């Protein structure tokens, strides 16, 4: 294009036209008030944003809303880059989608603060009041419930609905937040130190369309295989679990109040049934890769049978464990006669939803640094966990709240938004919260992955004892609800 213009204009006097063209681009650039003109750089658009968020998933969109609504950041230029299409949901689809998240009350508060929770409740969400977690290898079980079954423990919300609600909220913030859909990033460039002459000290982002944008603060919310994390060379501790999760929508045999979340630890991995409505639930079954593939191959009837027997059958229990378990329970009931709850069985499944089952691999990952100069990671880009505790999305929303508060304060103090001081504070605060949670989840996963008697005994006693201590259960629920 450039060459063509030059060629045609060559007939009118090459020199004059080239100069005119350069002047034109210089004028365009200076009218935006940009600096690159000084460096004779006419690489086209080179806008400087205050914040760019890379990745428009649940956590990235929430971050964009949160920054856009903050009064101290009014007038700042915020850009959200999303590689996919805009997810608009004019009407809630009749069929439930298979990917769901458990949203804790803390996350619900954060979402309500950014105005998205209202949209979610209007669309569709299912609060649940009780959770029962039990072992396949023994009789041990633990139930979490709020005292009088009045308050919600958490909410099951489809991921699509969360993203659609956030998109709707972003539409209303179009003055402060600009969103670019279908913009895939191909390259990130480090900010050069200010001492280097002729350097541009902002992070430079190159899109697939050839456009480049610059920013004072880049927030990476681009998921577990984060490109931001990779490009900035942030070391990550990660490994794959030898497990995949199979997800599907289940139709229950008969309508029930369905406000309980069920999770059973099988030796191959936990199977969870999360309520979606009175007649439908969501399945998340983490198991070995081989078994997961087999499950996907089964026809509907066999698959339903497999699910029901996974929840109901007791063949894994050995006599030793049974005896030890009942002895221990007897002892505990002498000490605390009123504590403990009877084991309930989850509702039986009759069929599965119209959308097909899907499997995806599971792993754990943690970025050793959440931040660099002018860069911050949030959500799965910073930490990735096993779905057994339903905490992945909640950790991400916690990151959003923390980083927004610190960036807002920095703006009110006139600081450079990409400065290390407040980013370091974000990293410290979130690592302090996230690491114990991740360690606990990983420990649980390892503890329940085995059939070996000592481990089973340990976890049996542990679970039974915890079940009998309401104070300890309250602490666990409080920690998970943040």
């Amino acid at each position: 294009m450039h060459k063509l213009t030059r060629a045609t204009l060559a007939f009118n006097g090459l020199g004059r036209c080239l100069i005119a063209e350069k002047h034109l681009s210089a004028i365009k650039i200076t009218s935006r008030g940009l600096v690159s003109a000084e460096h004779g750089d006419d690489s086209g658009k080179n806008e400087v944003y205050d914040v760019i968020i890379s990745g428009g998933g649940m956590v990235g969109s929430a971050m964009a809303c949160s920054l856009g609504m903050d009064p101290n950041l009014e007038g700042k230029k915020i850009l959200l880059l999303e590689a996919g299409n805009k997810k608009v949901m004019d009407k809630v689809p009749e069929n439930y989608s298979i990917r769901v998240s458990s949203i804790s009350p803390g996350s619900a508060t954060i979402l309500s603060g950014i105005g998205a929770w209202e949209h979610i409740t209007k669309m569709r969400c299912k609060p649940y009041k009780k959770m029962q977690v039990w072992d396949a290898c023994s009789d041990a079980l633990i139930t979490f419930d709020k005292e009088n079954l009045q308050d919600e423990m958490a909410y099951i919300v489809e991921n699509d609905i969360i993203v659609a609600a956030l998109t709707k909220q972003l539409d209303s913030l179009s003055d402060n937040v600009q969103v670019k859909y279908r913009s895939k990033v191909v390259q990130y460039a480090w900010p050069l130190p200010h001492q280097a002459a002729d350097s541009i000290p902002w992070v430079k982002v190159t899109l697939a369309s050839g456009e480049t944008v610059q920013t004072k603060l880049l927030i990476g919310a681009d998921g577990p295989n984060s490109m931001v994390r990779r490009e900035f060379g942030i070391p990550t501790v990660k490994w794959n679990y030898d497990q995949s999760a199979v997800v599907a929508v289940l139709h229950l045999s008969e309508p029930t109040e369905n406000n309980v979340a069920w999770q059973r630890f099988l030796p191959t991995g936990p199977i969870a049934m999360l309520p979606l409505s009175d007649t439908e639930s969501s399945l998340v079954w983490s198991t070995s890769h081989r078994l997961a593939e087999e499950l996907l191959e089964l026809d509907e009837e066999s698959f339903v049978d497999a699910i029901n027997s996974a929840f109901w059958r007791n063949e894994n229990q050995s006599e030793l464990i049974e005896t030890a378990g009942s002895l221990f329970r007897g002892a505990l009931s002498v000490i605390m006669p009123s504590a403990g709850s009877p084991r309930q069985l989850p509702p039986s499944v009759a069929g599965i939803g119209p959308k097909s089952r899907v499997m995806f691999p599971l792993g754990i990952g943690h970025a050793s640094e959440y931040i660099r100069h002018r860069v911050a990671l949030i959500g799965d880009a910073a930490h990735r966990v096993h779905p057994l505790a339903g905490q992945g999305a909640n950790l991400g929303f916690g990151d959003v709240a923390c980083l927004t508060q610190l960036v807002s304060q920095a703006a009110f103090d006139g600081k450079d938004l990409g400065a290390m001081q407040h980013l370091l504070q974000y990293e410290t605060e979130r690592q302090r919260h996230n690491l114990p949670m991740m360690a606990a989840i990983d420990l649980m996963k390892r503890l329940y992955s085995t059939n070996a008697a000592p481990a089973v005994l340990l976890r049996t006693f542990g679970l039974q004892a915890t079940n009998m201590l309401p104070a300890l259960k309250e602490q666990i629920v409080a920690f998970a609800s943040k």
Partner: protein
Amino acid sequence: MGCTAGRRPRCRAGLRSWTAVCKQRTLWLQRSACLNTQQNTVPCHVSARSASQTTVDPEEVRRFQSLASKWWDEQGEFAALHAMNDLRVPFIRDNLLNVHRVRHPGKPLRGLRILDVGCGGGLLTEPLGRLGANVLGIDPVGDSIGTAQLHSSIDPDLCECVCYRASTLEELAAEEDEAEEEQGAGQFDAVIASEVVEHLADLETFAFCCNQVLKLGGSLFITTINKTNLSYALGIVVAEQLLHIVPSGTHDWDKFISPVELERLLESNGFSVQSVQGMLYNPVSGAWSWTDSTAINYALHAVKVRDDPHTEQAGGSSTHPEDHHTTATHG
């Protein structure tokens, strides 16, 4: 990352020998003996400041000239000043918001004209510009102004709000004086002199010029160091010679001024002191904090309540020493 490591000041054991310290004290004593015989125009106690019509001390200018390129290295010589922004920016912002009650979310200081005297590399000027104020930074050291201009030119948000000039306060005040008839007294809503008065030659002129350039009801913010034994021990011996928090020779204890004296000086120049607050630097964490004691560092906020009576008197500089002398005998 190495950031946390870099933030701690280098604690070299480069202890200057006692003889050198003693020499400094003897010099001070000698100088004070000399001054007693000179005709001086400052209040009764001995001061190392000479009587001059300029606030600028050429020694100081020379010293800061050599450091001009180092302003923006956050872990370098000026690390403590960078850290001080955590205290002084909120101090200035909140006190100005108390006075001017119009709220602009996102740009709390919009519409205010601020003068940053002795801005150096623009460490304090830039945050104030980001808060929406229209800031003019002046400094007698040309190289510092160059550094400041270069640094602020990179940020498109700052280009419009922040500008710099290599000038002294008196030169600026003289210009303002000429323009006064058309625009009325004083142009600035606030004047900031942070870590400046301990480097000045003549404080009376400084206070007078501040009064001239300020609007009535405008604010004056000063942060400086108290003149106490503790400030000598910590501010000079420990900070400069032991811990190298500040480059050696930056401060001259004789030029420190106590809050009481500063208050007296300002009140005789048409100001009313609103608040004085002590500040404390923690060399381990590299952070400042507010404290009750003003024994070492302190911040002061004063408001111009009346035009300096001396501005009404016509005539050149020759009348000034007499006026100051009069104040001294009455004070």
